[in-house]
């Protein structure tokens, strides 16, 4: 019985040590898999790191992927602070493309700095709507967001196929995609400002992502609404007691979450592809769950986790060219292992680490007992 009383880890261990241990384990297991198919794990690791950070070109692509993951990671984190698990980031990011393309095409001959804010608003509006509906269903009808958001992913996918094929595809083009946006309406690549990045896909949307990270930090910890949503996430009965409207908070948070996910569409449609294509989200919404988990729902953590996953995507792509024996599928396995150990199984080391910490420090243990007796004693 007494062994069940464990004190939470000190913050630095929770935020830094645990993710590093998880990541190390993911790499060790990946290394074993690489070894099993007769390749050199260290060479593979070297290829991934060089492929992700080796030069401006590679790093640019890493940042391009990271941009998407920052948005989807934030989307998950903001909802998580309010106790909501939004796993519909994929659908919200996907359908937001409709809003972005709907303004980007008509405004394509205006300068990008006019198109950009309008595209943000349009993407946020449509993505936000796709988050609002499940939020409304939860707040007013008690349908759990976990169920509805995942359903909305499928609905979004179906709608997008229909819209692209039947509405947006210009006559005479065979591929299922919208018309191209004129060069004036395209987001400038970062390479235009910083030559080191060359002509890689990382574009001005990265700045938007950084602004969103700062904004989310302020929202969550320095606004009245942030207080209310964190309160809801911790104890919905207490927010009802306090008279904060739980239903209102749920609807606003889900809308914000969907809007953040929708920013992926800005990155993809006006920043990279210059048109609406099918499946451009490429599961960034789901990676966002792992990013938020690994980043402990904190903007700084999300920034770091997003760069890590961006590096894995980019480095993994390079890997197959450097080591021909490692196929594209192998790269997916490594990415999956990282998601598994840092995302799904992020608590694996926690009890062991807590025990180590408690053995090292008797005060920790005493504190745990006290906290426990306060909880059960009254």
């Amino acid at each position, binding site marked *: 019985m007494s062994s069940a009383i464990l004190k939470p880890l000190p913050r630095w261990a929770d935020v830094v040590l645990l993710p590093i241990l998880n990541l190390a384990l993911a790499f060790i297991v990946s290394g074993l898999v690489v070894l099993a198919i007769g390749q050199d794990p260290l060479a593979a690791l070297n290829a991934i790191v060089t492929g992700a950070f080796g030069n401006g070109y590679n790093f640019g692509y890493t940042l391009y992927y990271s941009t998407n993951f920052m948005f989807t990671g934030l989307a998950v984190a903001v909802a998580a602070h309010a106790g909501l698990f939004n796993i519909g980031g994929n659908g919200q990011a996907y359908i937001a493309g409709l809003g972005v393309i709907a303004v980007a095409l008509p405004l394509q001959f205006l300068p990008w700095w006019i198109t950009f804010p309008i595209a943000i608003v349009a993407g946020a509006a449509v993505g936000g709507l796709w988050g609002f509906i499940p939020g409304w269903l939860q707040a007013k009808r008690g349908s759990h967001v976990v169920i509805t958001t995942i359903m909305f992913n499928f609905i979004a996918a179906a709608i997008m196929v229909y819209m692209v094929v039947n509405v947006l595809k210009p006559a005479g083009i065979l591929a299922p995609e919208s018309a191209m946006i004129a060069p004036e309406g395209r987001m400038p690549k970062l390479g235009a400002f910083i030559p080191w990045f060359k002509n890689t896909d990382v574009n001005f949307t990265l700045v938007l992502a950084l602004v969103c990270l700062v904004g989310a930090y302020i929202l969550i910890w*320095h606004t009245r609404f942030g207080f209310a949503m964190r*309160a809801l996430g911790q*104890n919905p009965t207490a927010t009802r*007691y306090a*008279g904060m409207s739980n239903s209102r908070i749920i609807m606003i948070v889900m809308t914000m979450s969907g809007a953040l996910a929708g920013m992926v569409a800005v990155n993809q449609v006006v920043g990279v592809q210059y048109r609406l294509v099918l499946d451009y989200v490429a599961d960034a919404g789901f990676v966002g769950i792992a990013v938020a988990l690994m980043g402990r729902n904190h903007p700084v953590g999300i920034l770091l986790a997003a760069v890590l996953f961006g590096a894995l995507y980019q480095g993994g792509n390079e890997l197959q060219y450097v080591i021909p024996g490692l196929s594209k599928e192998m790269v997916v396995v490594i990415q999956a292992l990282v998601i598994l150990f840092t995302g799904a199984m992020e608590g694996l080391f926690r009890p062991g680490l807590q025990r180590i910490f408690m053995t090292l420090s008797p005060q920790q243990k005493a*504190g745990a007992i006290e*906290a426990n007796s306060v909880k059960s*004693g*009254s």
Partner: protein
Amino acid sequence: MSSDTPMGDPIAQRPQVAAASSAAASDLAIELIGINKRFGAVHANKDIDLQVRRGTVHGIVGENGAGKSTLMSILYGFYTADSGEIRVNGTPHAITDSRHALALGIGMVHQHFMLVDNFSILENVVLGAEDSAMLGPSLDRARKELTRLAKEYRLDVNPDAIIEDVSVGTQQRVEILKALYRGADVLILDEPTGVLTPAEADDLFRVLRTLRDQGKTIILITHKLREIMAITDYVSVMRQGAMVDTLKTSETNPEQLAELMVGRRVLLRVEKTAAKPGDTFLSVENLVVKDDLGVTRVKDVSFTVRAGEIVGIAGVAGNGQSELLESISGMRDQTSGIVRLKGTPLSLEGDDGAHRARKAGLAHVPEDRQRMGLITAFEEWENAMLGYEDDPAYGKGIILDSAAAQAEARERIKKFDIRPANERLKTANFSGGNQQKIVLAREMERNPDVLIVGQPTRGVDIGAIEFIHNQIIKMRDAGKAILVVSVELDEIRSLADRILVMFDGQIVGEADPATATEGELGLMMAGVTDKKAAAPARVAAQGQGS
């Protein structure tokens, strides 16, 4: 039934058998010698010696965190002691788990019943003690055994009644029967009367006396000194992990026990002047409220609270008090009725009703502070503004000025003597009494016209109880209207200027605390009103909710 000494009772004979070996040890059912239990730096049990004589009721009192529960958990096999010895009937045993404790004849009746609601009493008794693959023979044996136990200890129950249909008092009997069925000679009861009416508590005491007279040993953990005086033969007082003293109950008094518990002199009675009621501040008219399952829990309740008076609502837990509080304070939608504050109807519907109630001047100290009144994962200062976070004092526009909120929290910590005095500490790390002070400070410092307090001192140490009661009386003397709901009849009687008794969702009576006897109130709490008309028929028609 009147003869309490069935012949051939093995338990009754056991003392004589044991007496042959050693006179001193034979008396003792349980002996704890030098028990130590540390959790890291916390010395939860310090060198505890305890001797419990066979065939006695032995009370253990102490404040929260004094180590009573740890000690009993060691005896019942939940924890193992770091050092020390446990002797059961004179023989040392290392009790490893509760199954082992039961095998040694030690049974426990927990504060929160561990019963399966939709099983019959018989099935609950057998649960976990089935001795064959097929249920039939076990149930038949249990039925015979229950009949025997019922005769022997006057513990009558209907074995086929479903748990959720029977009263709380009966459910507790089932817990006792479960322990006896498993062969318990020593019964540990943890705060057994918290959920009982005074009449049910009396009934429990009668059962405990019968058990004692039949040779069973009872260990009673309680914080109610009145019960210690009423039922126990010996009482042990614990303070801060140490055993302070063991006394013969007949040779002590509540004041002495309270002093031993706290370590200083404590005023047990609330000292207050007569109320000077003014205008009606709160009026509740024909209120009907349903619970989450759609069951009507408040049935057409009307009452008023005037400025400068404390109205206490007495009643056994679960008779609609929670729903009444929640609906007046805007936490729960009402089905019909009006709540007026200084004559103006409050609009309480919607999930931000509590916000409007607060704006109108109604503050609420909820009965379950950890579930409702606080967010225990938050820091103290964040809880110090919960519900008032839109106050302009905490910043302009959407931005929250945490420095201003923390400064205010620091002031209140000083004023209400909240310990530890650290507004950046997580609220979960404060004791029950200090958590309650955080809530009280938040609600009282807003200077509301009406203050509603649910269970003002539940889980609060004796020392803090005094402070909390004085604060409530200070509010009253400042001309505020105060509504107090408590299941502690003693608290209601000493605090309230006027008592309303709630039973089955209705106000069944009003009483003057100065003149009403505990017996009268107890009868009302059980739904028995001496009004000649209508009342008996209604009571008979209603099963008691739990």
